[in-house]
């Protein structure tokens, strides 16, 4: 059984099966969380699959390359799979929680079959929101991820720029994420609601 791993942020450790919500403000703050998270995984030989808001991901991958050797080879081998804004899975019209979970399941099982010991999976909210019909579906999806994440040696990171929402979503995020990363501190969430109570 795979064990604890470094998140990438100093002092933060992740366990297999964790589903973490990171709240932050702005792109610089995002990079301060996400770049170390992915770099740590790549250097440990793990699979990293992540959706970002940029239309072109070359610049983002270059920034990972500042801390990780052979980043282009890691992209070519699909150890590092960064999805751009237009590289979506579904549209709001054909969105279903089951279909998006099935996609992640297929991607992670393929990574396991390829021999990766652990998968770091996730996306910025700005990447998946255009694929969702609304916030209700978002929170159903987040709740379903809590069932999915326990199936494999993986950790899921959901990143929310909380300054971008007219609706305030923080309390809803707290209902659907067992862990919350805030200001570089990973908080266990005692108010997390088990998936069956939400879906």
């Amino acid at each position: 059984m795979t064990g604890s791993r470094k998140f990438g942020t100093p002092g933060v450790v992740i366990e297999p099966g964790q589903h973490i919500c990171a709240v932050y403000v702005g792109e610089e703050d995002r990079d301060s969380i996400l770049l170390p998270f992915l770099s740590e995984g790549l250097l440990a030989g793990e699979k990293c699959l992540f959706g970002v808001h940029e239309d072109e991901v070359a610049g983002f991958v270059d920034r990972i390359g500042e801390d990780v050797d052979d980043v282009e080879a890691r992209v070519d081998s699909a150890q590092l799979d960064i999805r751009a804004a237009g590289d979506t899975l579904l549209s709001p019209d054909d969105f279903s929680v089951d279909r998006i979970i099935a996609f992640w399941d297929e991607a992670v099982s393929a990574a396991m079959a390829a021999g990766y010991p652990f998968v770091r999976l996730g996306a910025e909210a700005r990447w998946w929101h255009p694929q969702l019909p609304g916030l209700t579906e978002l929170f159903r999806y987040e709740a379903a991820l809590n069932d999915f994440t326990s199936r494999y040696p993986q950790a899921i990171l959901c990143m929310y720029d909380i300054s971008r929402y007219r609706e305030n979503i923080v309390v809803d995020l707290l209902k659907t994420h067992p862990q919350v990363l805030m200001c570089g501190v990973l908080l266990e969430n005692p108010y997390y609601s088990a998936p069956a109570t939400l879906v």
Partner: protein
Amino acid sequence: MAEKDRTDREVTLGGAALAPGDHLCVFHRGRAERDRLLIPFLTEGLRAGDAVLYLAAEGERENFRERLGHVGDLVLTEPDSGHLRDGEFAPDALFAMLDGWSRRKLGTGDHPFGRIVGDMSWAAPRLGSGLIDVLLAEEVAVTAWGQGLPQVILCLYDLDLFGGDLIIPMIKSHPKSWMAGTLVENPYYLSSTENGHHPHFERRIPS
């Protein structure tokens, strides 16, 4: 009307506008980050003629007195004369102190607006489930008490000292919080009288 007489003055925290009656939980990481928010907030108030009460962390009172430059109506205390009595959290004594300060400062016309800030670091070494419940009740009661007064209240929680067992319920029990560098409003916040978690909080509110 002179600026010092206005109760609708601009009050900002980290660039975000606050409103009279606001009570915020402020989450920060470490004292340096706290001070980057706190010093401008207190200075803005002192320069505007507000009455300012800062319940500082242990050993920090004189440091803040120096840094704030001896200007304006500034009252500084430390936990032993603020949140604690004989080393134990004393919510009733705290409320009496807060209410007395507000009535003295805000009722005379000298200071139409007040700013109260409490550094909650004192609670970290005392924290257990019992104290968490009492603190939550206290925060709800402070919200109710402060809503009718021309003042803003900040409670500072250091994320390096407190975990999710305290921080997450604090977010849920406050109408507004400051986290990750931004002001967050809680659309599900129940008014203090509707807050079902702490049915006996009313008795803490001075009449």
